């Protein structure tokens, strides 16, 4: 029997083929660069241009004005409060969702996804009805005896935080739920056999393992709260100034483009900061695989 000769030649590594697939990303990436990144860069350039020359005068002027700082503080304070309320309410809710059995879990999910899918204008409008002095919230508070007279909730910061936290809740609950679902129940059992009581089990095992979800939820809610426009407009009206409201005012009503672009860049910087920070934190908390 003769054996057919087989010639073995060095085969070049399959790199060209891999690179070809990489080009599939081009249309999408290019689109976002052109329609998203470039305009933002141009905006940045506008903000540092004064009379055709490079100048940081716009920023200097803005940051020197105490009014600006009040606006920045308003924005960050409301966003932080909203995020905290969302976290305090959303964290337990995420656990409840994970523990719920089939039908109950389905109902809870529906209760979360439905408001998510309905528009922000619809929800913000609904909260204007609820927070009125004769609205449902006040009626409940007075009825259960928590307060004696109806509180002024509309056009107050508390009303805004409460309404916004409520509207953003699904964005906090769902990422945390996604992570809680994946936690191996054997881990808390193992901790118990090693002598850890319920509190230690939660703090040393469960809580650290939920961190990636918490970080994602907090990042989402905080960025959305920083940028929100419709909700404060409807729930707080003209008197309250956040960075977003200031941007809208500058461009739509005051026609002051330089101020508008300056404030936009400040807002953008904060938003980018949140994204970068959350990415760094996520990497630290994600168990290395």
């Amino acid at each position, binding site marked *: 029997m003769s054996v057919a000769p087989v010639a073995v030649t060095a085969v070049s590594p399959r790199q060209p083929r891999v690179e070809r697939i*990489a080009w*599939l*990303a081009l*249309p*999408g*990436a290019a*689109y*976002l660069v052109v*329609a*998203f990144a470039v*305009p*933002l860069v*141009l*905006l940045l350039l506008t903000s540092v241009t004064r009379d055709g020359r490079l100048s940081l005068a716009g920023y200097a002027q803005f940051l020197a004005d105490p009014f600006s700082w009040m606006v920045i503080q308003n924005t960050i304070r409301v966003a932080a409060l909203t995020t905290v309320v969302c976290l305090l309410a959303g964290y*337990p*809710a995420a656990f*409840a*969702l994970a523990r719920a059995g089939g039908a109950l879990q389905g109902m809870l*999910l*529906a*209760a*979360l996804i*439905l*408001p998510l*899918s309905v*528009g*922000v*204008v619809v929800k913000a*409008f609904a909260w*204007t009805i*609820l927070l009125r002095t*004769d*609205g*449902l919230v006040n*009626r409940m508070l007075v009825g259960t005896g928590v307060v004696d007279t109806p509180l002024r909730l509309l056009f107050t910061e508390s009303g805004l935080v409460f309404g916004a936290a409520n509207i953003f*809740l*699904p964005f906090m*609950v*769902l990422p945390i*739920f996604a992570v809680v679902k994946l936690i191996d129940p054997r881990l808390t059992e193992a901790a118990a056999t090693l002598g850890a*009581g*319920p509190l230690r089990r939660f703090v040393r095992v469960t809580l650290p393992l939920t961190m990636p979800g918490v970080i994602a939820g907090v990042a989402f809610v905080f*960025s959305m709260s920083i*940028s929100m*426009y*419709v909700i404060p407009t*409807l729930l707080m009206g003209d008197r309250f100034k956040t960075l*977003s409201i200031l941007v*809208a005012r500058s*461009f*739509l009503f005051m026609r002051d*483009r330089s101020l508008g*672009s300056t404030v*936009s860049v400040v*807002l*953008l910087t904060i*938003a980018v900061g*949140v*994204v970068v920070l959350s*990415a760094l934190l996520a990497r630290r908390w994600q168990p290395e695989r």
Partner: protein
Amino acid sequence: MMPLERAALVAMWTITALVVLTLLTPLVVTLIVSVSASSVFNLPPPALSVRWYERTLRLRDLWPAVRLSVALALLSTAISLVLGTLCAIALTRASFPGKTTLTTFMVSPLMMPGLVVGVALLSMLRELGLRDAWTSLLIGHVVITLPYVTRTVLASLTLFDFTLIEAARTLGHSPPRALVEVMVPVLAPAFLTSGLFAFLASLDNYPISIFLVDARNKTLPTLMLQYLEENPDPTIAAISSGLIVLTIVVLLVADRLVGLRRLAEF
């Protein structure tokens, strides 16, 4: 079970019940107000009436706005499904420098302040001489929908076993056919989920749209906010209720097709 655990569980379920209550109450209230006979937002309504619904039929601007918003949502979602899927495939299969950065970049529009993106886009389009509101809106809305698609399809593809495609090829399919026959059924839920949320995000968008609309082309949210500022009456509640009912129907269909649990992973 120890008392601490019991207390924690009670607290957990109580908070959850309150959360569900506060999530659904606004929607229920909107529905009730929309059939209230009173033009002031009183609860409970003194009498029931469908006059606000009748008014919506007579609003001249409403239906063009609805048509515009739906068309924009459909078109931008379709475009994003194509661009986003291609991108997701590249990000899963290819390795090249800066892949993580690209992934973050593709998803980042979700986290950026919409107003800023809107105004930046408007300025650039004006500079380029583009004045057509419809095209501007479409361009802006693809920026909104693309991250949703990329993110969800990417997550789905990361879990996808690509050796299935190779198996299909050994069984006789050509490479493109193998790709279609094997990947599409597996990705279908991801398409549906991301497509649904992208559609809803576009339909609901205010911050970017407000800068790109003009007098004759208004999207639904822009119009609604305008109504609220000019003459707030329960007509808005009627429009909102219509949207709520529409959303419920859409979600029921989506649940039938993919299941709510899949939707939760938008």
